[in-house]
């Protein structure tokens, strides 16, 4: 026998529902500010009263990007540990709140908001893919907080709320092209994964090539993660360029270099310049398939400097002798030190103070001295071309004359005038 409400009770229930619906409508109608009006500034909840100060470490610990991003997490943790051992920042111990970005931009946005609003961190370190950074950017701007982003990227961005400690294009792509031009390369072939970084990089490369008399013989993209390269390699081979510029990402490099070697192409007759292959990736590709090929970065484990020796030793001591250090790890390590130095200079953890005092802050990093540019929030970096050697490490074969000033919108290059507009 189904339970039946008496008519009266039924009416009650109906009224109940109607009331709730109306309440909802009323709440909906009570709207906030409209476009053009100022939104009341969100109050920062960062607690600076205690002995510790919290910072966020937001990296993908699961999913496809976990391979790369866990190494960055380790580098951040190492820097924080060292800083704490040396007395902390402003006398406070730095405490890391770690979050998993799960290789998904939406998760990055969600976790960034959690770090800022729930954990009340003073700054967040992390992010890898451009998609994750683009997803986090509005969160940091809306909540007026700080992100330190440690990976080389396609440039064309400068947010008040982000510090970019990896290379922008004029510190990586352009030096790589300069190097190729210096060594007499007259024609190149472009191969990349189908997403933003390779497409932007190749747009720059095309403009550069046109201005410098280099012929671009082909430009091919594969879907991310693709392992099918026979068509492209066939085309590369018959094009017979002087060099290949490779912006492939992740596992695709494995298939690419194997196929490349198997059709008889070598570093001697057609070198490949890669911008996404660091020490970590060489092992998976197999040294025998990639030995002698070139890479463009700002840092290699083999960089010869006292700061780097200390860094590599400390890292291996912390995480094991078999671990290697790479460019994004170094940039992440730097980012923590740069933040600490800025806070010390400003004498405050407040976002506006850090922003106001960032210009000129420097750190004697493993790659050399890096200095923050207060206008675009990037840092000066030394460009290095490395050659992959039989031991799986990269050795510098060319180095820029000192650190290069960051120029994310390529305003200093006439041939790049058509590429992008300043924001």
């Amino acid at each position, binding site marked *: 026998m189904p339970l039946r409400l008496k008519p009266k009770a039924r009416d009650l229930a109906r009224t109940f529902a109607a009331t709730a619906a109306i309440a909802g409508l009323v709440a909906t109608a009570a709207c906030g500010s409209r476009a053009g009006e100022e939104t009341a500034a969100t109050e920062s909840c960062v607690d600076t009263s205690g002995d510790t100060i919290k910072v966020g470490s937001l990296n993908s610990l699961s999913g496809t990007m976990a391979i790369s991003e866990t190494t960055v997490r380790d580098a951040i943790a190492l820097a924080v540990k060292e800083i704490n051992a040396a007395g902390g920042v402003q006398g406070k111990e730095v405490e890391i709140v770690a979050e998993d970005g799960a290789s998904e931009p939406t998760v990055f946005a969600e976790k960034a908001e959690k770090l800022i609003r729930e954990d009340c961190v003073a700054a967040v370190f992390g992010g890898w893919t451009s998609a994750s950074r683009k997803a986090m950017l509005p969160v940091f701007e809306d909540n007026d907080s700080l992100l330190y982003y440690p990976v080389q990227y396609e440039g064309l961005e400068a947010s008040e709320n982000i510090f970019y400690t990896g290379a922008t294009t004029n510190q990586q792509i352009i030096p790589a092209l300069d190097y190729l031009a210096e060594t007499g390369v007259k024609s190149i072939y472009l191969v990349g994964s*189908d997403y933003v970084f390779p497409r932007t990089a190749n747009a720059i490369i095309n403009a550069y090539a046109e201005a410098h008399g280099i012929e671009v013989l082909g430009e091919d993209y594969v*879907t991310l993660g693709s392992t099918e390269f*026979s068509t492209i390699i066939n085309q590369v*081979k018959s094009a017979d360029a002087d060099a290949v510029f490779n912006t492939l990402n992740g596992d695709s490099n494995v298939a690419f270099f194997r196929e490349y070697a198997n059709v008889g192409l070598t570093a001697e007759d057609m070198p490949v310049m890669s911008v996404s292959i660091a020490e970590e990736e060489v092992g998976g590709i197999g040294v025998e398939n990639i030995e002698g090929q070139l890479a463009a970065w700002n840092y290699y484990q083999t960089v010869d400097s006292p700061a780097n020796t200390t860094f590599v030793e400390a890292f291996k001591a912390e995480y094991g002798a078999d671990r290697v250090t790479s460019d994004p790890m170094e940039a992440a390590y730097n980012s923590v030190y740069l933040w600490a130095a800025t806070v010390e200079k400003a004498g405050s953890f407040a976002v506006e103070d850090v922003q106001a005092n960032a210009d000129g802050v420097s750190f004697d990093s493993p790659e050399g001295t890096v200095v923050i540019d207060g206008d675009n929030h990037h840092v000066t970096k030394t460009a290095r071309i490395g050659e992959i050697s039989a031991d799986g490490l990269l050795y510098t074969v060319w180095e820029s004359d000192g650190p290069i000033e960051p120029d994310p919108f390529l305003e200093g290059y006439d041939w790049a005038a058509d590429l992008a507009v300043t924001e």
Partner: protein
Amino acid sequence: MDLLVGQLFTGLSTGSILLLAALGLSLTFGQMGVINMAHGEFIMAGCYTAYVVQQVVGDAGASLLIALPIGFLVGGVMGLVLEALLIRRLYHRPLDTLLVTFGVGLILQQVARDVFGAPAVNVSVPEALRGGVDLLGVTVPKTRLFIMALAIVAVTAVTLVLRFTPAGRRIRAVVGNRDLAETAGISSRTVDAGTFFIGSGLAGVAGVALTLIGSTSPTTGQSYLVDAFLVVVAGGLGRIKGAVVAAVALGALQAVFETYSTASLAKVGVFIVIVVFLQLRPQGLFTLRTRSLA
């Protein structure tokens, strides 16, 4: 001209890779209508088998030859276990099997990640298979020739087993008409397990071979899985012949699309072709005639 010959070969080569990945599926899918989403992870297990064997044996050539049969066993045993523990219980719920095996795949991926680490590992190509052979003016990598040969051997072996061995005849009887085979005294249970062993074993073999051209990482299997399923769907249930034709056709299609547009559009193009194709032949290229309804 060179490019055209190259593309022709690429089609065949891509097709044989697809075929290797799909051959085992076409057996298990055809047999029970079971969609085994963990098939990709069985391929991945084959890849790691090749890696482990190479670590132990050292010599790349010898280890490849040893890894092929071991890969078959590893894949096969995993398939047997999966069949006995889960699939057998879900025989009347094929869609549920799909989801359950997806869960199994997730777990296997994570196991690989925890055991071997997330970064790709390197399986060296044997000296004898490095470099290429010049055929009609194009350089054909030896690794791809090897994979084509292996695909031919695998298809031939499966065909021979199905045709001429008593076990194969039983499998064909069950695929043809399960109930009739039961009444004829064939235990479909044993046959299911056997088919699953062979089908999953073939995934293992495919994995070993695919280390020659691709990467070996926890997500390796995923990249082959959807394409392999499309091959089986287009080829028709339980038909080795259909799988062969469909694999080569899709491979060629992909190569042609890729030459005249981008690799991304090629994927989309292949999908559209398959939907249109199913409009014309809803049961795939080749179908078995049974008297059953629907």
